[in-house]
């Protein structure tokens, strides 16, 4: 019976009603130990798989329509099929969870490392991959400890390494580290980092990792949650998996819902079967907005996602529906903002993140995000110029040309602009910085206008000083 309450040893995780594919062991305080994993069916999937035809294993994953959980939502089974007949081949696990609002992969690594390891081994077996590198974000010390211990135990027990379970199958899984860079979550930047370089993305094509990845060899990069689904799928079958969720998006996924809700938490949810309204207000989930406040806006898919508003509450958790409505589900990070939220401040903070994390390779992003942040900072502090709002939109257009994805705003007669945005850049970081700007200005333009000094005539006072210091030095005249 689900307790519908927080699980203390998995901070933030709520044991809500519903099927548990990847969080089934979260109720056990010692779920990360090998003995506990084995007692609950652990490594039975590997045992089954190792007697199968590798291509049958691949087929099962393809049939299950396992969509990637890292943000792009690309079907894993399809991605697996892109590799040319070239060796060596590698698996790189993307454990670099850094998207603002996202919190799930860390829990999976800390609470159920063996499930992840087993998922890696299944993948390596299915595709004939030589070695797996489990890349964990540098700041996640506990996750590193759990995985290191799990690997040491799994090696000793014969689940990893030479002659797995006494068979001729030999696969190594190596724990490796990030060192603090959001951009390294982008798969080609991750590969660069794993090669010992600055984490700068590569252009795709030609550098699709499945074709030219680690050391320019075919490489599968999969998210932690994606791989964690594999043991369950192998044991229970693709058909059983597709009984959960919806036809277009089978299965479950982990969502982190944070911000101004009464019960922020990490929930395992059936895709397509709930709406945003269910998630924010439902008793099985976040139980409403704090203090009885009204919803002002919410981010449906992490810092990179355009904002949604009360009108979008009844959209189901379906990637294509959310995309058509002007945003994305991304990495399953929902951030709820109530009526007390300052739209300019929220926009500034998200843009500041992208400006700080820009790798610097592409000019529109490197220069553009810096300008975006500076302009938003001076608007926020009451020193903005009359032309700044249009300037922001113009900079955004240089990074991501054309109408930017946005939610419909019927009161203003604006229809939705579907996702994804275009990009003049090698990776989507620069274009992502435009999401909060377009969203906030389109919907709350008056909040920006009120901040401009000319508005002082209407009795408006600039906001207080920020702790980071206001960058008001650009008082030079713009020609």
């Amino acid at each position: 019976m689900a307790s519908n309450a927080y699980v203390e040893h998995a901070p933030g995780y709520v044991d809500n009603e519903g099927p548990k594919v990847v969080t089934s062991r979260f109720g056990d305080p010692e779920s990360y130990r090998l003995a506990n994993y084995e007692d609950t069916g652990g490594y039975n999937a590997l045992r089954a798989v190792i007697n199968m035809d590798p291509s049958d294993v691949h087929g099962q994953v393809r049939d299950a329509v396992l969509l990637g959980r890292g943000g792009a939502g690309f079907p894993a089974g399809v991605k697996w099929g892109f590799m040319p007949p070239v060796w060596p081949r590698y698996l790189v696990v993307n454990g670099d969870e850094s998207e603002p609002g996202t919190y799930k992969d860390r829990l999976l690594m800390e609470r159920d490392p063996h499930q992840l390891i087993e998922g890696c081994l299944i993948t390596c077996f299915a595709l004939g991959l030589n070695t797996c590198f489990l890349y964990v974000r540098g700041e996640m010390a506990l996750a590193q400890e759990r995985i290191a211990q799990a690997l040491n135990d799994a090696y000793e027990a014969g689940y990893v390494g030479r002659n797995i379970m006494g068979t001729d199958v030999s696969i190594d899984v190596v724990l490796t580290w990030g060192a603090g860079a959001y951009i390294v979550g982008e798969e080609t930047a991750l590969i660069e980092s794993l090669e010992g370089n600055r984490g700068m993305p590569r252009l795709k094509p030609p550098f699709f990792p499945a074709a030219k990845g680690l050391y320019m060899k075919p490489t599968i990069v999969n998210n932690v949650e994606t791989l964690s689904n594999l043991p369950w799928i192998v044991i229970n079958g693709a058909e059983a998996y597709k009984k959960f969720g919806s036809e277009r998006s089978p299965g479950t996924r982990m969502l982190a819902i944070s911000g101004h809700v009464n019960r922020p938490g990490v929930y395992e949810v059936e895709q397509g079967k709930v709406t945003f309204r269910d998630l924010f207000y439902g008793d099985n989930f976040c139980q409403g907005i704090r203090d009885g406040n009204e919803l002002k806006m919410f981010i449906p898919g992490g810092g990179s996602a355009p904002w949604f508003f009360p009108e979008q509450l009844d959209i189901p958790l379906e990637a294509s529906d959310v995309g058509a409505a002007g945003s994305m589900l991304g990495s399953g990070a929902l951030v709820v903002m109530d009526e007390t939220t300052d739209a300019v401040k929220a926009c500034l903070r998200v843009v500041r993140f992208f400006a700080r994390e820009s790798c610097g390779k592409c000019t529109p992003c490197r220069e553009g995000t810096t300008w975006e942040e500076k302009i938003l900072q001076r608007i926020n502090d009451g020193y903005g110029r009359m032309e700044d709002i249009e300037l922001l939109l113009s900079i955004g257009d240089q990074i991501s040309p054309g109408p930017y994805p946005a939610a419909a705003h019927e009161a203003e007669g604006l229809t939705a602009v579907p996702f994804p945005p275009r990009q003049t850049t090698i990776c989507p970081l620069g274009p992502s910085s435009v999401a909060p700007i377009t969203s906030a200005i389109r919907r709350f333009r008056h909040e920006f206008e009120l901040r401009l000094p000319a508005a002082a005539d209407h009795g408006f006072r600039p906001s207080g000083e920020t702790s980071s210091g206001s960058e008001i030095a650009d008082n030079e005249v713009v020609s």
Partner: protein
Amino acid sequence: MSRLSAANVLLAREIISRYPRPKSALIPLLHLSQEQNGWVTNEAMEHIAELIGVTPAEVLGTCSFYEMFKREPVGKYMVNICTNISCLLNGGEELLHHAEETLGIKPGGTTDDGLFTLEDVECIAACTEAPCLQVNYRYEYRIDNQGFDRMIEDLRGGKRSDIPTHGTLGRIRQHIDSDRGAGIESPEKTGKPDWFASREPVEEGAS
């Protein structure tokens, strides 16, 4: 002398052996040197360059990209307070202000006694537990001002044995015994695994 100690050189060689190319061990070795010295020194970077066969400039080139590597001395305890969107909505900025006042430093600064360095960081993946912070990469969740003060006091009093000094990440290391490993070679020396080749379907008409 901040070059890697003899024991750490052995560890470094073990780490290097787990990658098909030595340069892939660059970031792990920078972490190892930071664990040893508390920060990343020029001597350590030169030593790492020798160990993996690149130039010191290449080591610096990679090192300087990543936030976690501190190329100047920092406090014993690195206090990282998140002010990204989810934490901002739940008091992250107020917590940062309180930290600045209590410690008497701005983000990036270190207290005079060398104990604390304060940083204003980006999302640390604990968004439902906002506001949150990390001390030497160990979490404190839903922390208010009193909780912060208590934490600082405990750290000053040496009462937090669960928090190692700056630079130490996971305290459990992976080891692969030579008789248990599948074997990792350079990409040039690695071909299709025999176990996969033997399981491939035989093509019709093949001899």
